[in-house]
């Protein structure tokens, strides 16, 4: 089963093709651009390129897995809108996974802190033991994150490395496509019902109700 994985929860736009078999996963191809302002422009060409590179057409896809964040909202929505529309057009299911979970899973054995940049001097964070989430996901100032791990991964961990005081897995800054798909592998194999892709916002919209009228006469 050919599965497309998309993630735009970090400065990276990732499009990956992964083959899911009854007992395994094989990465077929992966495209990634790191540019926090360009998800809207980069992601779709990356998808066409990754399909063309591997010699497939969109109709060959069986399912789509998308990283639900948490991540900066505007970019995050690009991945989810793209995944949802492709799923609808192709009549195939879409499955959502937590983007931090993909990093946690890829980090392998041990206790690991995953942190990504939430802007406004904050991070999205979660901790994992042997790839399984123990706390989070949450959003906080780096200094307020309770560190209980042996190492860290994610671009937020690199940016605030001195605050966390943990060794950073520098090869693991953005959610890898294969890990995203691995998190949904059971659902893909069972052909579970398609899911509505709702972002893990973790923050409310900034909006204030207007106060009383300001006088204009002086």
């Amino acid at each position, binding site marked *: 089963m050919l599965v497309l994985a998309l993630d735009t929860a970090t400065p990276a736009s990732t499009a990956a093709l992964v083959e899911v078999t009854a007992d395994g996963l094989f990465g077929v191809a992966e495209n990634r651009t790191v540019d926090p302002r360009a*998800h*809207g*422009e*980069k*992601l*779709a*060409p990356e*998808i*066409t390129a990754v399909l063309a590179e591997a010699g497939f*057409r*969109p109709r060959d896809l069986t399912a789509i897995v998308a990283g639900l964040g948490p991540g900066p*909202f*505007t970019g995050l*929505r*690009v*991945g*989810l*809108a*793209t*995944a*949802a*529309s*492709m799923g*609808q*057009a*192709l009549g195939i299911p879409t499955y959502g996974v937590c983007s931090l979970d993909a990093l946690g899973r890829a980090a392998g054995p041990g206790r690991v802190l995953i942190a990504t940049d939430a802007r406004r001097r904050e991070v999205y964070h979660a901790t994992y033991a042997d790839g399984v989430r123990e706390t989070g996901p949450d959003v906080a100032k780096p200094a307020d994150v309770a560190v209980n791990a042996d190492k860290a991964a994610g671009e937020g961990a690199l940016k605030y490395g001195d605050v966390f005081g943990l060794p950073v897995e520098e090869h693991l800054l953005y959610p890898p496509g294969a890990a995203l798909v691995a998190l949904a592998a059971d659902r893909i194999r069972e052909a579970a019902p398609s899911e*509505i892709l*709702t*972002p893990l*916002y973790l923050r409310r*919209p*900034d*909006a*204030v*109700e*207007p106060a009383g*009228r300001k*006088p*204009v*006469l002086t």
Partner: protein
Amino acid sequence: MRDEPLVLGIETSCDETGVGIVRGHTLLADALASSVDQHARFGGVVPEVASRAHLEALVPTMQRALDEAGVTLADVDAIAVTSGPGLAGALLVGVAAAKGYALAAEKPIYGVNHLAAHVAVDTLEHGPLPEPAVAMLVSGGHSSLLLVDDLTAGVTPLGATIDDAAGEAFDKVARLLGLGFPGGPVIDRTARDGDPGSIAFPRGLTAPKDQAKHRFDFSFSGLKTAVARWVEARERAGEPVPIAHVSASFQEAVCDVLTAKAIDACVSNGVGTLVIGGGVAANSRLRVLAEERAARHGIVVRVPRPQLCTDNGAMVAALGSHLVAAGVAPSRLDLPADSAMSLTSVSVPG
């Protein structure tokens, strides 16, 4: 397919999620989801709230449009989407989705200009547009006068608001009068019981000194402040505020300026057709006054029905259909959402 292309249009530039489907000049479906109720308590559109609502609404709205038209994505000749101008985050949801539909269904994509789409939608109701024409687009987000030489190639901006949009002025005055949001329909209603000549509110940028630089530009910020001052003076004097008279006089000031400048634009450019679009085009006084004044100069006024005046997917599909029929090259898959998209490009070049 060139003559009667089947085109799907996606619109998410503000608070309406629209998906429309047209075949040539024929409207097959116009599905809409609005987040207007979620913005009401804030007295205006909150961009992040709108963006969240677009993401939720897109897939179901698309499904309703396809069902209504009785077609599938495989049937369409092209997908058009509003590339700009509009709220950046909101536009991006529609553009990303349009790309997903286009690349999955292997269809060409056209990123189009929202303002040009407001003009194109009129052809669904009144047939081909005589060119050149003048278009006046008035809504909560825009107040523009355009010279339309060729709807598929380029549109020349003649003027625009230098501060608030016309619809924004309606919203702000409605809030001031405690009438709620959105302000356009409610002021139109309350104004019916008032005397439009009872209070002399200012007509922005209509003084002789404004002719040189701002002949076709609008300004509604001074009008809004004048209404606020007038109302506050009444309240301070302990007198009741005659809401109907204030509404009627305010509305008259807006409509007077809009129609005077629109007709001037037609006459000075030797144009015989005026198209009015945008949410404020639904205002009853604006329609009457425009037709009265246009008739004196032999100008024909075309106003699409209210559902087509406000933001919708059909307008985007209508413009897309024009572009396909004219053989314009599609945009590329890296087309941007451009919140400040200029009118010199009707579609994003391929």
